[in-house]
């Protein structure tokens, strides 16, 4: 992979740091009145999702990381691994470990496209679409007529996620959920 110098550290660039692939989040230029310049860089460790803050001398460089983000459909799980398939027509499949799946496990639905991040051709993380439609499998019975008032209750969805929903929602209904906040948006 190519090396990238601090002045090429744009948001989204993938680089290697301490052996892990990272994405540049923010790059700021720090300089005393007259003197050596530094770059304060925020990087997201793509393995752990944690954000690191590091200082580099301006002009220092990091090795690029062979990271690809591809759209893949979720197929099935055998309990050990979760299988996804590229949507580019190649039918190529990738097996994803639980560790890489992390929180996305509770937003899985067959045939929905996810963004799978590959590092050296191994899946290291899976991002669900921002909005997903899921069926309610378990919740207290809905309250008739209560469509305008506030108030909410927990509902378990077909993917296993539990979200707060309005009181009028019933089992069997399909809901639109924002996966970033884990919040109910509307009936689908």
């Amino acid at each position: 992979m190519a090396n990238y110098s601090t002045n090429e550290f744009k948001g989204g660039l993938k680089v290697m740091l301490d052996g892990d692939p990272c994405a540049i989040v923010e790059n700021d230029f720090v300089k005393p009145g007259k003197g050596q310049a530094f770059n304060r860089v925020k990087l997201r460790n793509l393995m752990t999702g944690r954000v690191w803050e590091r200082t580099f001398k301006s002009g220092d460089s990091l090795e690029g990381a062979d990271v690809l983000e591809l759209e893949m459909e979720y197929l099935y799980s055998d309990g050990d691994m979760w299988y996804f398939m590229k949507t580019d027509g190649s039918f190529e499949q990738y097996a994803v470990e639980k560790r890489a799946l992390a929180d996305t496990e509770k937003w899985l639905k067959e045939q929905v496209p996810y963004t799978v991040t590959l590092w050296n051709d191994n899946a290291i993380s899976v991002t669900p679409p921002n909005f997903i439609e899921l069926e309610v499998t378990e919740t207290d019975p809905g309250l008739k007529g209560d469509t305008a008032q506030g108030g909410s209750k927990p509902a378990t969805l077909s993917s296993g996620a539990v979200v707060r929903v309005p009181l009028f929602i019933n089992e069997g209904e399909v809901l639109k959920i924002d996966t970033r906040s884990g919040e109910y948006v509307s009936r689908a």
Partner: protein
Amino acid sequence: MSIDWQPTAEIATLRERARLMGRVRAFFAARHVLEVETPVLGHGGSTDVHLDSLYCEAMMPSGQERLWLQTSPEFHMKRLLAAGSGPIFQLARSFRDGEVGSRHNLEFTMLEWYRPGFSLGALIDETDALIREVLPDDPGPQHRHRYRDLFRERLAIDPFTEDLDGLRRMASEKGGLDMEDAQRDDCLDLLMSLVIEPTLGREGLDVVIDYPASQAALARRHQDPQDGAWVASRFEVYRHGLELANGYDELTDASEQQVRFHEDNSARRALGKPEVDVDERLVAALRSGMPSGSGVALGLDRLIQLALGKGRVADVMAFATPGA
């Protein structure tokens, strides 16, 4: 994909900016300081090791010439001083390659002024007055700190006598990066910009004086009357962790100036940086005689940013370079 053509600053901010620039001009008019405009392009550039200049190749009657975009209007303004202009100020568009960030933009407005006959202390007070003229609220009292004292108080080291290994160790530890091969001033710069600067100007205006002699740039050097150490006759002003101004008791000695230019270019060669054409006309002007006095460069965009409570310097620019 749609192209983002919108200005970086809001139009309302640009109105405020224009109003504040009017106050700056009125401030100097009341003090009988002449507004001047000097060229953005010059045959000489800044040799400062830590400033990267942009240049262009221009067609002149005598053929193609390399012209340097000025990193500050200093050289031309000093030639005016040598020609007997008296006190002058300028709102000068200045250019520094590679400097883009929350506090920097490739091109920016430098408010630079020169006061023949002023001591450094007198210019510190005038800079303080200008800043108060532009800020909407009283920033509180002015505090002056010797560079050496700041390091002793905040880091418990003496920046003038601590050995290089000790400085490298501290810089590596505080910066979280490898500074084991760094030069003395590079270690001090890191500690200054990452540890000390963010704490300055939190209560009032902090003025740092008496920089290490090695960081004199175009300032005179003098011996500290308290401890006898050689220091640079320089100051910087900070508010909310932001460096606003950098002032010098100006070097007027032509030979010394020439030596510093050539030392800079040697240092640039050693670092593998391109050499910059030395401004021989400035050296000639100093040789003919420039009145002693003090001068200061103030980042006007940053001062306006503070005055308007904006988070980034780009927020007060019509078009910051990434969107220009």
